């Protein structure tokens, strides 16, 4: 049992982590909030001052922001739909007794370990290039004209790349959940004469519902912050076609040196992410009790 000494020691030992995480998140966040109320440009540092909510009204009424918000939602929504639906199919397939399951698992999970800059550039140049990419060759072989991916369908291209990165994660988590399904329950269902569809709907889906929720929430958190893939392929363009909120904030802060406006964007991104985080922490919090 925890004695008084160990409790005291425990407080001391946990203190560095608490202090560091506090300094890492809360302090800069407070600074972001503060900056967001200032006219603060690095190019014109003399001329700074309090402007209240002006940065927010400017940011929110900026057509680029509306586009970025829309792009963020499209990107997150599409990748979620693709990776969760695809992940369920892949997990169901891998859960069957197949030959070489271990190797299959390794192959399916592999893309998750590829760094984002590599996956984006490999897809853009080796696969999706309209002149000599592999997809162009497939299209020509089938008698179609090759798709000019990143120029004509920039957002779709980014979605494809990011989906490839996240499909393995969804598959792995859902497969893990599937494998904990009780053998007896499976047998009982087949004895009762459940067809594949009702088996999936009444047995499998309720069993993995929680895992699906977790996948959706965790992916949403990461997908709201997609940055490197856009940075190395389209730089947010053409125009603002692939500019999402993280990229817009980056552009304001480090390319336009407008700290005030970037901070307002940062605060908006935090609010967006927090809505998701609250749901996730509820589920995780329930789990921590166990």
């Amino acid at each position, binding site marked *: 049992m925890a004695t008084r000494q160990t409790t005291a020691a425990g407080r001391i030992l946990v203190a560095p982590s608490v202090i560091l995480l506090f300094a890492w998140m809360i302090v800069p966040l407070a600074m972001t909030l503060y900056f967001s109320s200032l006219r603060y440009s690095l190019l014109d540092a003399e001329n700074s001052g309090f402007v209240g909510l002006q940065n927010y009204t400017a940011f929110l009424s900026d057509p680029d922001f509306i586009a970025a918000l829309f792009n963020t939602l499209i990107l997150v929504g599409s990748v979620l739909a693709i990776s969760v639906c695809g992940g369920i199919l*892949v997990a169901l397939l891998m859960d069957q007794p197949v030959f070489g399951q271990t190797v299959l698992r390794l192959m399916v999970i592999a893309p998750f370990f590829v760094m984002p800059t590599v996956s984006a550039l490999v897809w853009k140049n080796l696969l999706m290039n309209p*002149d000599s990419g592999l997809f162009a060759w497939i299209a020509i072989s089938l008698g179609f004209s090759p798709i000019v991916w990143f120029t004509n369908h920039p957002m779709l291209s980014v979605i494809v790349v990011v989906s490839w990165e996240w499909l393995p994660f969804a598959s*792995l988590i859902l497969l893990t959940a599937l494998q904990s399904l009780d053998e007896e329950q499976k047998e009982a269902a087949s004895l009762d004469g459940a067809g594949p569809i009702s088996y999936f709907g009444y047995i499998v889906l309720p069993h993995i519902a929680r895992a699906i929720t977790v996948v959706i929430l965790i992916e949403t958190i990461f997908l709201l912050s997609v940055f490197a893939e856009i940075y190395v392929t389209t730089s947010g363009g053409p125009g603002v076609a692939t500019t999402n909120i993280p990229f817009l904030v980056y552009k304001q802060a480090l390319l336009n040196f407008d700290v005030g406006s970037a901070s307002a964007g940062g605060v908006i991104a935090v609010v967006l992410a927090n809505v998701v985080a609250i749901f996730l922490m509820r589920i995780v919090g329930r789990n921590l009790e166990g």
Partner: protein
Amino acid sequence: MAMKQSAGKRVGVTVRAWVVAFLTFFPILWTFITSFKSELDAIAMPPKFLFFNWTLENYVEVQSRSNCLRFAENSIILSIGANIVGLLISVPAAWSMAFAPTKRAKDVLTWMLSTKMMPAVGVLAPIYLLFRDLHLLDSLWGVGFVLMLLNLPIPIWMLSTYFKEIPVDILEAARMDGASLLNEILYILTPMAAPGIASTVLLTIILSWNEAFWTLNLATSNAAPLTAFIASYSAPEGFFWAKLSAASTLAIAPILVLGWCSQKQLVRGLTFGAVK
């Protein structure tokens, strides 16, 4: 009859599963193959799949032209250094969470995990300005520190779940024998929790190695790891696909192997234990 049918079904499922797995894995395989082509073979139409002159010249050139190994060295220093410092901070915290929890320990842990959910852009401007003023931009210390803090909640959480599985009696027996807290953690707890610590380290190395927001924004040359090195290929100069493939293969190979070793822990770590 029933046996035959199920064997036939098994073959069908196996074929489908292999096709799906192969397609998923193909971009990585294709990168690997392309890295051994000459630049001309790399853009050949129709593509050359296996029959071309296999060459190592891209690897030689990537190293001699842009000193790829220096970036690899930065990646290694950053991910391992961040891990060592991270362990020094997270092991004591996890001990506290597991063996001497206060009433609010659960809330503290939840709060720590919630910092993971803060989008990086929310603190980009102040961190960038602080780093500029402290001369930490583009320094290994600065970037390493950020990577450590970024992942810190994960080892604290994972380690505390592993520590909880260790019987507290053993630690108490050591205490009775007069072991100090430091000795208790170093010589009793750490060896017993070694497998858990190892899988935690694997996961955080993978996350640090692939981190590509802060490394791209805070490191430009001196401290730039492989993520930033690969990003430099986004501005193409002439034929460069085979070289891009060689650099990419070098950048992902080590972490792919580590990742394959740690896939079980990955589920536990990345879902914060919500899926086991």
